[in-house]
Structure formats: structure tokens, C-alpha cells
């Protein structure tokens, strides 16, 4: 599982326009698992190879996306949030953050952050705002949270609450990197802000094995975490019910069918 884009960097960002179709690209593989059309032969092969070891990956992709939709709908609805900082945008798919938020609150403002040129080009062209709201696009690397906060300060109103979204991207970082990044980002947000996250969990043996194989292949690694490790991301925040839980259990739609558990998620509020 590689999510949402960006590959956080290395191979793509280094190469000219940043599009290398000779190596699989995590945003495009993810797009393939989601049933999208923005993927090339190398991505489909890599996606299929992964699927052979772990057929559940398509469910991971779908259910994780479902969490994003429900979390954003909750944030724009019940929580009354009108500003979203979505880091690790990924390639456009159905129900992108601004579409969900602006369906609930048309004036919502979304800042999409990614460091992948392909993702950014797609976002600028296809993730366009409703007339009442706004979408902005930020070319930045999450490894530099201060720079993201600086740039976001020019685009969002930091006197009002903001929802920080890290959807499937923190798995690209070790604990040593990941917790400080999240701590720094959350510290920069005003009181009353929210933080939403999901990532792959290490609670399923088949998933663990597939991911080990994937990480050994030379691709940008992605680490699966335990439920306790997920809890740590939300230290100091008030967890929104039902807390840190498997993705299918977070405020499921009434008609949702039970799904296998591969990912964990949570939404916290900054006091």
C-alpha cells in the first residue's frame, strides 16, 4: 500500500518533469487499485503483482477512500470546518476532498499539498473549486512541515479552525520521522482545529507479508503500524467518537457492508 501520491519524493522529484514511466509510481498504482485510468503498464504490473500476494489491496484502497469521504463530510458538517489542509493529495479520483467538503459547505477552502509534479498538474486542472469556495495547490514536501505551515498561512485564515488531513501518507515514514512531522503540523494550527489520518495497519498477516515484499523491491517503502502506534499520532488531541478504530468502523454509513480490516484511522480535535 503506497498511497496517495507523492511517493514522498525521491525517485520522481529528481527526474526533470518528474514523470518516469519506466518505474511504478505509487500514486498511479493507487489509482489502478481504485479502478482509475491514470496508470501505465508498469503501474498495472506492479499493482497486479502486489494483488497476487495480497488480494485485499483493492479493498484497502476502496475502504480507505471511504474513510476520507466520511471524515471530510463529518468535518464540513457536524464539526463546521471550512478550511482543509490536505497533504499528499494523490491523483484525482471520485469524491475528492473539495468535492465532499463543498457538497456540504460550498464555501469550503481546500489547500492541496503534494510534491509530485504529475499530481500537482492534475490537481490544478481537475481539482477545481465551486464558485463559492476555493482550491489552492501547494508544491511542498511534508518533510518540511514549517515550510508547509508558512505557505498555508498565506492561503488559509489561521485565526479560524483548519482540518489537517494526512490520508495514507505517514506510512511512508518511520516513527522517528512521522511523529515529529505530525506534532509540528498540529502545533501550527489554531485551537479548535482537527486532524484526520488513516494508514495501513499491521494487524493482518497477509498484508504484512505483501508489504514486506513490496518494501524489499526497492520502491519507496511503506510501514504498517499497530493500533497503539496510531493512537500516538493523536496524543494531546480530543478524539472524535469512536476514536482510533479500523477504517470500516469509523462512523460507517448505515448501509455499509462489513469489510475486512486492513487500515486504521482517527479524527482528533485540538483543544
Amino acid at each position: 500500500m503506497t498511497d496517495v501520491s507523492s511517493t514522498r519524493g525521491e525517485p520522481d522529484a529528481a527526474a526533470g518533469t518528474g514523470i518516469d514511466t519506466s518505474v511504478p509510481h505509487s500514486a498511479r498504482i493507487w489509482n489502478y487499485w481504485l479502478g482509475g485510468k491514470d496508470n501505465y503498464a508498469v503501474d498495472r504490473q506492479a499493482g497486479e503483482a502486489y494483488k497476487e500476494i495480497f488480494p485485499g489491496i483493492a479493498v484497502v484502497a476502496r475502504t480507505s477512500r471511504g474513510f476520507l469521504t466520511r471524515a471530510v463530510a463529518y468535518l464540513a458538517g457536524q464539526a463546521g470546518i471550512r478550511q482543509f489542509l490536505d497533504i499528499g493529495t494523490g491523483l484525482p479520483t471520485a469524491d475528492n476532498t473539495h468535492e465532499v467538503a463543498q457538497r456540504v459547505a460550498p464555501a469550503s477552502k481546500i489547500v492541496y499539498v503534494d510534491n509530485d509534479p504529475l499530481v500537482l498538474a492534475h490537481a490544478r486542472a481537475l481539482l477545481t473549486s465551486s464558485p463559492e469556495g476555493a482550491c489552492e495547490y501547494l508544491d511542498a514536501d511534508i518533510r518540511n512541515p514549517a515550510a508547509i505551515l508558512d505557505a498555508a498561512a498565506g492561503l488559509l485564515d489561521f485565526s479560524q479552525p483548519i482540518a489537517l488531513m494526512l490520508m495514507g501518507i505517514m506510512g511512508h515514514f518511520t516513527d522517528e520521522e512521522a511523529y515529529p512531522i505530525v506534532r509540528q503540523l498540529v502545533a501550527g494550527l489554531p485551537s479548535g482545529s482537527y486532524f484526520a489520518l488513516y494508514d495501513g495497519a499491521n494487524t493482518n498477516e497477509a498484508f504484512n507479508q505483501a508489504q514486506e515484499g513490496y518494501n524489499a523491491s526497492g520502491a519507496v517503502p511503506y510501514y504498517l503500524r499497530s493500533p497503539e502506534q496510531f493512537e500516538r499520532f493523536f496524543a494531546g488531541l480530543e478524539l472524535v467518537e469512536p476514536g482510533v478504530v479500523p477504517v470500516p468502523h469509523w462512523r460507517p454509513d448505515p448501509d455499509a457492508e462489513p469489510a475486512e480490516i486492513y487500515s486504521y484511522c482517527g479524527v482528533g480535535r485540538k483543544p
Partner: protein
Amino acid sequence: MSRDQRDGGSPGDAGGPDAGGPDAGGPDAGGPTVPRLLLGIQLRRCREAAGISPDQAGYEIRASRSKISRMENGQVRFKERDVTDLLTLYGVTDEKIRDGLVALVRQANAPGWWSKYGDIMADWFESYLGLEAAASVIRTFELQFVHGLFQTEDYARAVTLLGHTAAPAAEIDRRVSLRLKRQDLLNGSKPPQVWSVMDEGALRRPVGGAAVMRAQLHRLIEVAQLRHVTVQVVPFRRGGHAAAGGSFTVLRFAEPDVPDVVYLEHLTSALYLDKHEDVDHYMEVMNHLSTEALTPAESVRFIAGIIRDI
């Protein structure tokens, strides 16, 4: 000059009386193209699942193997009887599936709004209009001309005259009106996303003269403000770019089963590619161009700069 076949007028100009009248197959209706493609894809699936060769299938409906292949590629009109006979041959007995496909046959045979322009339009271009009207995302790279969906009436007329120097005035008018009519697509209730990357040359070439070109560039800035339109410029200073082959279009359809289609226009014909290998290659070039080009916001400022130069 093939361009002139396909390039249309401009959204605002389209509003004349010609745009009026309820159009059975107007842009909102999508037209018959996607039903045809879907029908073809499903017929192929059923035939392959039944292990029946195109020859056998053709024999069943008193047609050739190439007719079967054209049907499966969504390139022909379908007869209801042919489809039901084939389904029987393929062992598809589920009434629900059969009824669904028969309903598709009816949609696939409905005329598109463009059918009344048949006299001035080559068949291959008619197919393009069908695809364009059905697409959810239209990505284009333009080397020489402003894209047809964005053209002003004057610019469209100038481009048309380039290709039809000897045509009578009435025919020119009809051709221009077809271009403008095409732009209704942008004003429909569910417009496609149009993502157009243009070479700086297309902006500098003063088609129709300086005044026409200035107005055209103003129009371009105007349409670029639309939520579903993106204009990006590849400036000369970026040097050589990825699209050595010239202008092309990639059409994306919302239906998960329908593959992307690459459209390449030539002087007297057009090429439609929908095989993975081909589409991958063109999509890769298109993605390179989109990342090499100025961002949409920079592009608008760049076009404003060219207007001052003209």
C-alpha cells in the same frame, strides 16, 4: 488544414438562433457514442466467454467477421435483431442482461445533434464529435491553432477559410456554425473537463489578423476562468517539448469500462487509438507536456502578455 474540420467556434458566439431549439441529441444527452462503445465491449465479452470466433458469430447474423469486429469496436449502428441473435448464440439467456443490452441498442442508434451537418462533415469527424460529446475529460495538445472548443467566430471563420478557399459563402457559414454549435458542450449542465495544453506558437500565429487574434486571446483568458476549463501554455523558452508528433487529443469517459481514446487528425482522415499500449504512450506525452507547461495561473498571465505584444 485538417484542423478546420474539427475546430469549432467559441462558447459565447454559439448563442445565435442556431443554438436554439430542443436538440434531441444535444451535448447534455451525450449522444450515441458511448452506448455504442459499451455495447461493443459487452458483446465481445459475451462472445469470448462463450468461446465463439468472430467468423462463427458473423455467420450467425449473416455478416462478415469484420462486421463483428466493427460492432465490437462500437463503430457501427446496431440492429436489435442482430444483437438478440448474437446473445442467443453466446448463450446469454438472462432476460435482465438481454433487456439492458437491447436498451443500449436504442440509445446507440439515436442520432447526435451533429447529424444534420452530415453533408459538410466527413464520417471520421462525425465519430469525433460523438466521442467529444460523451467524454468526461478532454485533454488536448495544440501546436498551431487555438482549440476548436475555445475559438471565437471570427477566428473559426479564418481557420475555415484556410481550408476551403474555394467554398461558397453559404458553406463557410455552415461550417462555422457547426464549430460554434460544438461549443454548447461547454455550457451544458454537465460539461466535460477540458484540459488544453497549447504551444506558444498557437498563440502567436495571428490567424485572421491582429485584431481577430487579440479577441481570440481575450476569449481564451475568459474561458480559462471556467471551472471545467484549464489552459496551459508551453512557452518557446522551454525549448523542445515532448509532443514531437504534433497536436492530439485524449478523451476520457466516466464509464469505468470504456477505455481512453486518443484522437489524431490527419488531412483527410483521423486515427482513433484505444489500445493500452498506444494510449499509455500518448498519455505519457500529455502528462509530460502538462508538467512542462506553465501552471494555469501563469498561463493566463502569459497570454495577457502576448496580447500586449500583438
